[in-house]
């Protein structure tokens, strides 16, 4: 183990460190930078769409902006920020000193830097312009930036896989004594479920991207239609990863919600085992549904119905989670601090995404709304209203542990209000535009959709503004916010039993776990009313 540099000097965040806490913060800060980059692209897109025939950007520039808005937000913001949270918290939550492979952990972060630079650099040689889905044959003939984009996504996939190998090895082999799988905190459960998806789905995208890169650079004929290449093959390779990818992007956020609800309702999580099992169910089912993105394509018509069925089945474990969360806060003593507000916001907005997901799974409806703004609204409710709200909730919840300082509660609430109103204002109108006939990824549109797009752009601008109180709060509070103490929220999971920020080796002595992670309201042993599920199972 390398010698730990003095805990508090910020210099350590800019070098190669194998401390999972340093790597976690490096992930969080780097991914936040890319969130702002992706957000800026969204700002230009929504300004362009203020008017049906606006000429703010050319069609070519628009395609490049929307392609890279998607790619940056998914691969350089959501995946790394959740990996950062996982990196920082999993060892602490299971009572370990660090990850199983610290050097591999540092490498998986540092792969992010070249990947991010490559994607941004692609703008100088003609950025990728075939959408983040890079459908062939369009993506084969695109400008050189498309190749840089492919290499960048391959690097990000490799980094993501390295991280997952680390998470699974750490959770399986480094849990503290007494910390059985049924006492594993639900955030760590979600990282385990996510890692299974990452390791099984990402390599298939890597193979597909290699084929695209070879078609573009070496002249192979995988996707050359005149030579017999099949564009549907790319769609299968792409979506085999990219549907599990959206579960990879939402499961850790759900894990954070499962941590926050019991703490701020002062009540054990309801149905702990069902939530853990639901995470695994969503993870495994998520590998069987990918072709619901291809109902309108030339896929084999006989295969559409099985994919509809497997997609709809996923609504059941998702429903179990949402109802379990509701039952957690029922009869609780709810404190509406910022993390709780964002967690509540997650549920109400993710619900809209989840329900519209069932609409999209129904083939006849999908044949109408596929590749329209209905889908854009659905994916933003699930990813922005869902994952990002969950990531915000996690950032605020674990901020005192990471920095040792308390953030400003008022600014947090301002950020929540602006984010909640902005998200609904930005994406609800898009559902209607999609149903009424507005296709996806268009630089201009039919004048009949003008008002809906103006509403959406207004919401987007509000979201852009909402990031300012967050940025100010996070930076200023880290410098001179009030001291937070070890356990400001009085939580019961292991990471709150050590100092804030935790010492270099997390635990002076390896902890011994004797009770569940969410046993709130449990009177000490010998209380009159033992809870139904015995604490020590």
């Amino acid at each position: 183990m390398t010698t730990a540099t003095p805990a508090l000097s910020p210099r350590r965040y800019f070098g190669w460190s194998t401390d999972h806490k340093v790597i976690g913060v490096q992930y969080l800060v780097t991914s936040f930078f890319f969130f702002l980059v992706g957000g800026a692209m969204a700002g230009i897109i929504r300004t362009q769409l203020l008017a049906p025939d606006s000429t703010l950007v050319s069609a070519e520039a628009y395609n490049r902006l929307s392609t890279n808005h998607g790619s940056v937000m998914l691969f350089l913001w959501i995946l790394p920020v959740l990996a950062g949270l996982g990196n920082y918290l999993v060892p602490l939550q299971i009572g370990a000193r660090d990850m199983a492979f610290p050097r591999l952990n540092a490498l998986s972060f540092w792969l992010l830097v070249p990947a991010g630079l490559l994607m941004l650099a692609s703008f100088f040689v003609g950025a990728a312009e075939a959408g983040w889905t890079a459908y062939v044959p369009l993506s084969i003939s695109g400008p050189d930036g498309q190749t840089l984009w492919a290499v960048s996504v391959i690097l990000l996939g490799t980094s993501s896989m390295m991280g997952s190998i680390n998470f699974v090895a750490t959770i399986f082999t480094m849990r503290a004594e007494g910390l059985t799988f049924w006492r594993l905190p639900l955030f760590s459960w979600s990282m385990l479920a996510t890692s299974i998806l990452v390791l099984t789905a990402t390599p298939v995208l890597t193979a597909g991207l290699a084929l695209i890169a070879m078609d573009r650079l070496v002249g192979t004929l995988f996707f050359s239609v005149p030579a017999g290449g099949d564009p549907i093959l790319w769609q299968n390779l792409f979506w085999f990863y990219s549907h599990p990818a959206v579960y990879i992007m939402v499961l850790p956020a759900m894990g954070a919600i499962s941590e926050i609800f019991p703490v701020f309702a002062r009540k054990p999580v309801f149905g702990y085992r069902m939530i853990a099992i639901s995470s695994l169910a969503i993870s495994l089912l998520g590998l069987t549904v990918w072709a619901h993105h291809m109902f309108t394509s030339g896929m084999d018509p006989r295969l559409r119905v099985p994919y509809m069925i497997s997609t709809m089945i996923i609504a059941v474990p998702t429903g179990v989670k949402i109802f379990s969360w509701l039952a957690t806060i029922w009869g609780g003593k709810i404190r509406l601090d910022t993390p709780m507000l964002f967690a509540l916001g997650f549920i109400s907005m993710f619900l809209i995404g989840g329900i519209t997901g069932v609409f999209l799974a129904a083939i006849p409806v999908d044949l109408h709304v596929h590749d329209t703004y209905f889908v854009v609204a659905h994916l933003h409710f699930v990813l922005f209203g869902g994952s990002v709200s969950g990531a915000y909730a996690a950032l605020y919840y674990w901020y005192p542990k990471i920095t040792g300082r308390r953030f400003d509660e008022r600014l947090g609430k301002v950020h929540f209000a602006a984010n909640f109103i902005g998200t609904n204002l930005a994406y609800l109108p898009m559902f209607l535009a999609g149903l009424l006939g507005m296709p996806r990824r268009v630089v201009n549109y039919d004048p009949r959709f003008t008002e809906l797009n103006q509403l959406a752009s207004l919401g987007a601008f509000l979201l852009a503004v909402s990031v300012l109180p967050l940025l100010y709060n996070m930076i200023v509070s880290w410098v001179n916010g009030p001291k937070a103490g070890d356990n400001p929220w009085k939580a019961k999971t292991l990471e709150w039993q050590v100092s804030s920020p935790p010492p270099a080796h997390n635990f002076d002595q390896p902890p011994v776990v004797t009770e569940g992670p969410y046993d709130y309201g449990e009177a000490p042993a010998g209380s009159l009313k033992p809870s139904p599920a015995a604490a020590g199972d």
Partner: protein
Amino acid sequence: MTSHSIAHSDEFRAGRELSLDHRKLGMWLFLASEVMFFGGLIGTYLHYKATLPTPEAALLDTVLVGLNTFVLITSSLMVVLGLDAIQRGHRRGLITFLGLTALLGAIFLGGQVYEFISLAGHGVTLQSSVFGSSFYTLTGFHGLHVLIGVVWALVTLVKAARGTYSAQEHAGVEAFGLYWHFVDVVWIVLFTIIYLI
């Protein structure tokens, strides 16, 4: 969640309870992702084998590649015998078997290069047809993995010569062995779907 002290040395206690070693677990997780990577390429190859039947497939020399398969299987035997040797403390045995593994791996690669050259002679190249593209890509990526394996074998051999491994501690040899056998299993599958069926 009370925490009181127990000797700090034992980080991987939970792993041993499940009889798991974190390094071997890491290796198997990596191999799981490699199965999926080759899965993507195999899916592509089979898709085009079904949709674009081509006379070029008849140019494949099954007997020559059959011998090459035999070479790779023999190299797998060398690896396990090497591992068995070090487990009994015979460092020299490990070194010889690792050398043989690297040699056989190199012979396999030679055989593949020979096959590629003769195929190119018949006009089947990476750019000549979809069959050419999918054949060379699938066998090429496997060949690349064999090449990495040969280099890894030599590195392990040098470390063994320097006394890194002993009967008690030979995790590096076991990790290399898992990788090499995995590459052999991938070839068994490729040999079947390309040359046999």
